[in-house]
């Protein structure tokens, strides 16, 4: 309470200080005159002018103190009046609980939705990493590669061009053996100086330090959920990838990785193997700019070229495509090609902004409606001598109190929604966990939003209410004041138009989701089971050993009862990226073409297992092994692109760069299917025999086709587990695995769908309120008409016609705007769906018409049932 008083005081001081300069000047003048007159007097008593002035000043004392006290006299008045205004406003709200509730709930929903999307956007895109002064950190890449090999990293670190250079690999995985089970962990492999250079704070223990090899730092989540928040965890041994690792520390609950985007691995491990690759991050000396750092990096890369020329082409240089980027902010997002992501969130912000606008319009309408019924009360007060300013202030206080209460409730809603979002487990192959916490940015944003909505919702009614002279207001009854109802009508039309736009977006995204869910990915997800295996690298030092365990696993799976086919792939479609850009020379002559295609390595029977038709030629067989002639299967799109209308089977192609490869023979053409996203259009794809390209892959994906459903998943897991207990195995039906592919459309549908529903609900409340109010106001008129013998149906038609005009113009304006506003959405929709999808627009019109009719019918029916005498008497 004391805090509130202090804040109110501060607000008063602020408003006061706006007028303070005149005030100060005048007071200064007054004090100067006072001192001068006293000095004149003293001079007459015989003092010199100088002495007299000095003495007069001394007598007066500190002018500063006088000013301070004088000012306080006025401030106190502002505070007093403000508090009394708020007190009366509170009482007025309590007298109309229905009115207050409608206003507060509208704004709470609007502000809650708005601030939650704001928090979400900030957390996902602009959160600050947990590290020491992120401003002097820079992410670096050399030679156009996102990650550098350990030897290159060590070279750059040892030339000491920065205050420190560390590296991390966020895509690392590790197998953790707990009891009889092996779990796959998302690990972040970091160089041993990473924690020191980046300055990551720990909650417990110590970080990974230079020279450490077998230590592990745990995330708070892993420590709590997997290790039961063991307080003595530091020093405990965990078996990771078959070796004992000592827990050295635990990260705090609010740890955010430098990578951002809510990415939160289970553990940090030292990147100690020579085969590790790391993304570079440098600590710049204080004051060094990014371009200056870039120059230094280029110089270092020149040296690197001399020691380790790029392996893909000795004449190339590490200098090409070097990059130095800040670790947070827009520049980085642009570099990471996250712009569509940013666009999506900007769109969301606009959408929730529109929802809030609808909510504000609701409150504005409520206040207007109330102001018109209070018109006579205000007129009487004006007549009794209350200042217009005083009354405007009183009304403004009432208008302010409502948004303030609404904003408070909205913030509570925000905290609750953020808590829910933090617990959402997305079906992602990456460890993404949101950590949305209220912070100063949210607070600032909410204050701005609350003030804006207070202004939008409150100022208009407050000014309107006191316009026009006393006599005019006293003479007219509110029923005859038509101007305001036009204003309210305008508000409703705007509100409807905005909600049409929202609803169109929402319906589009919902339709997008249903379209993507029913869309065939080009392979069969129903009868396929997907087992992803991760082998411990230390246990399989040679490629031959990996090969033999992979083929052993496949033959055991094929032997299971009910299994029709089993195969292996390097990438599971829609669950990983296999895109490759290269120049391809078809028929080994002519001009090479640059193509971007999906390049997967798949085993024999892959197409039978996934039910992707082979249109020509054959599928891979066991004899397509390492050492035998290189072969490939193309999808229809790539076959047409490379060979036109000629039959590609039996023809060859090769990669001309950097050194011409041996010719590769096309042995088959597969039907087109989806590879990376469901939304992709006409993807090009090439399949290579698993044994020729990926035989040594430590994380093979085993695919099993079976007519049997019951217990198959568990049986596959058991079979593979027996083969190698140290391998981490995850088995799931392919249908579940599609979740990742459907995620963007699901999120889009969920977020925009709920925003649209919210907007519709608010607009419906507003529409209902205004129509009901205007019909109620006309009750005497309707009573008169009925008394004069008008037909009930005719009256009903008249009222309905008016609402139809209102709703109709709102919907028409909205549809017009929506037709343009939804165009940029095409980038988020599946190709089959156009942003100006006719069924969507028709559906929106239908929904809103229904709402308008419902909002009119109830009060209109009530009106014609009114007893004519009662209605007339109320006149």
């Amino acid at each position, binding site marked *: 309470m004391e805090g509130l008083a202090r804040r109110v005081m501060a607000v008063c001081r602020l408003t006061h200080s706006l007028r303070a300069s005149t005030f100060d000047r*005048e*007071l200064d*003048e*007054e*004090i100067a*005159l*006072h001192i*001068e*007159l*006293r000095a*004149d007097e003293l001079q007459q008593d015989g003092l010199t002018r100088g002495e007299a002035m000095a003495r007069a000043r001394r*007598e*007066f*004392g*500190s002018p500063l*103190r*006088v000013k301070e*006290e*004088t000012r*306080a*006299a*006025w401030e*106190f*008045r502002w505070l007093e009046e403000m508090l009394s205004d708020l007190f009366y406003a509170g009482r007025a709200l309590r007298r109309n609980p229905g009115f207050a509730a409608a206003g507060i709930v509208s704004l709470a929903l609007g502000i809650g939705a708005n601030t939650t999307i704001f928090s979400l956007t900030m957390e996902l895109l602009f959160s600050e990493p947990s590290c020491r002064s992120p401003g002097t950190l820079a992410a670096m890449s050399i030679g156009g590669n996102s990650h550098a090999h350990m030897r290159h990293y060590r070279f750059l670190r040892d030339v000491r061009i920065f205050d420190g250079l560390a590296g991390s690999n966020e895509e690392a995985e590790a197998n953790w053996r707990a009891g009889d089970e092996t779990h796959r962990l998302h690990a972040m492999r970091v160089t041993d100086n990473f924690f020191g250079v980046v300055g990551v704070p720990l909650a417990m223990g110590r970080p990974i330090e230079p020279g450490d090899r077998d230590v592990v730092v745990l995330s708070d989540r892993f420590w709590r959920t997997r290790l039961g928040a063991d307080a003595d965890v530091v020093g405990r041994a965990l078996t990771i990838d078959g070796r004992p690792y000592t827990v050295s520390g635990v990260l705090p609950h609010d740890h955010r990785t430098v990578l951002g985007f809510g990415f939160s691995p289970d553990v940090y491990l030292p990147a100690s193997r020579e085969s590790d690759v790391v993304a570079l991050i440098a600590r710049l000396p204080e004051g060094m700019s990014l371009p200056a750092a870039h120059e230094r990096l280029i110089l270092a890369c020149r040296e690197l070229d001399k020691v380790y020329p790029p392996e893909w082409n000795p004449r190339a240089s590490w200098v090409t495509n070097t990059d130095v980027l800040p670790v947070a902010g827009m520049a980085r997002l642009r570099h990471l090609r996250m712009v569509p992501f940013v666009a999506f969130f900007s769109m969301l912000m606009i959408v929730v902004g529109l929802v809030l606008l609808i909510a504000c319009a609701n409150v504005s309408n409520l206040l207007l409606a109330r102001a018109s019924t209070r018109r006579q009360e205000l007129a009487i007060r004006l007549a009794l001598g209350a200042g217009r300013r005083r009354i405007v202030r009183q009304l403004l206080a009432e208008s302010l109190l409502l948004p303030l209460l609404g904003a408070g409730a909205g913030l509570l809603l925000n905290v609750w929604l953020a808590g829910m979002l933090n617990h959402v487990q997305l079906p992602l192959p990456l460890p993404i966990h949101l950590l949305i916490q209220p912070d100063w940015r949210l607070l600032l944003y909410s204050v701005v939003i609350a003030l804006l909505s207070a202004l939008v919702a409150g100022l208009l009614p407050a000014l309107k209410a006191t316009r026009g002279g006393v006599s005019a207001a006293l003479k007219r009854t509110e029923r005859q004041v038509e101007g305001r109802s036009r204003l309210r009508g305008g508000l409703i039309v705007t509100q409807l138009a905005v909600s049409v736009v929202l609803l169109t977006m929402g319906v589009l995204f919902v339709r997008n989701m249903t379209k993507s869910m029913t869309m065939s990915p080009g392979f069969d997800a129903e009868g396929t089971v997907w087992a992803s295996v991760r082998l411990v690298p230390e246990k399989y030092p040679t490629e031959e050993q990996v090969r033999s365990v992979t083929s052993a696993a496949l033959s055991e799976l094929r032997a299971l009862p009910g299994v029709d086919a089993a195969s292996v792939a390097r990438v599971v479609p829609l669950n990983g990226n296999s895109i490759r850009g290269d120049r391809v020379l078809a028929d080994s002559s002519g001009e090479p073409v640059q193509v971007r295609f999906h390049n997967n390595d798949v085993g024999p029977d892959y197409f039978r297992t996934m039910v992707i038709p082979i249109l020509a030629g054959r599928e891979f067989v066991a004899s397509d092994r390492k050492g035998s002639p290189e072969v490939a299967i193309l999808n229809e799109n790539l076959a047409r692109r490379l060979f036109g209308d000629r039959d590609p089977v039996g023809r060859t192609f090769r990669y001309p760069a950097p050194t011409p490869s041996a010719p590769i023979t096309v042995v088959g053409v597969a039907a087109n299917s989806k590879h990376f996203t469901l939304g992709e259009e006409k993807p090009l794809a090439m399949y290579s025999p698993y044994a020729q390209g990926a035989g040594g892959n430590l994380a093979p994906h085993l695919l099993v086709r079976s007519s049997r459903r019951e217990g198959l998943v568990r049986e596959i897991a058991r079979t593979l587990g027996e083969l190698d207990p140290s391998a981490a195995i995850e088995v799931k039906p392919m249908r579940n695995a599609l979740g990742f592919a459907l995620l963007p459309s699901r999120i889009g549908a969920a977020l925009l769908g709920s925003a649209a529903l919210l907007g519709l609900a608010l607009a419906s409340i507003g529409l209902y309120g205004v129509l009901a109010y205007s019909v109620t106001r006309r009750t005497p008129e309707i009573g008169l008409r009925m008394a004069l013998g008008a037909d009930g149906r005719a009256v009903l038609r008249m009222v309905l016609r008016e609402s139809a005009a209102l709703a109709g113009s709102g919907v028409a304006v909205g549809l017009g705007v929506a037709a343009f506003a939804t165009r940029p959405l095409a980038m988020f929709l599946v190709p089959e769906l156009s942003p100006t999808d006719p069924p969507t627009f028709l559906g929106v019109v239908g929904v809103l018409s229904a709402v308008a009719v419902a909002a009119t019918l109830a009060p209109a029916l009530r009106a014609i049932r009114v007893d004519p005498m009662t209605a007339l008497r109320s006149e």
Partner: protein
Amino acid sequence: MIGPEIPELLPGTLYLLVLRALSRGPLHGYAIARRIKDTSADALEIEDGSLYPALNRMLVKGWLKAEWGISENNRRARFYKLTADGRKQLERESKQFEKLVMAIQRVMRTA
């Protein structure tokens, strides 16, 4: 230089004195102080530092009105004037003050 001892003002009497000083017409700040000093035959002196805050508090309460005018030495000065409320307040306060003074005197004489 050492003048006669000046008694401290009773709390709350400053308003009364200012109101009274203004009851014969508008005055600026210094003139108010002067008038009180003169009419009390130099027995009462208002601390300069407390005059202006008090005047402003009285403006806030609506007892006074202020207007800019020209002082006797031809300078811009703010003249304070009693409002209707101020007159009423003066009446009320003088009555109370008289009662208070009489009561104190009675106590002083008899006790």
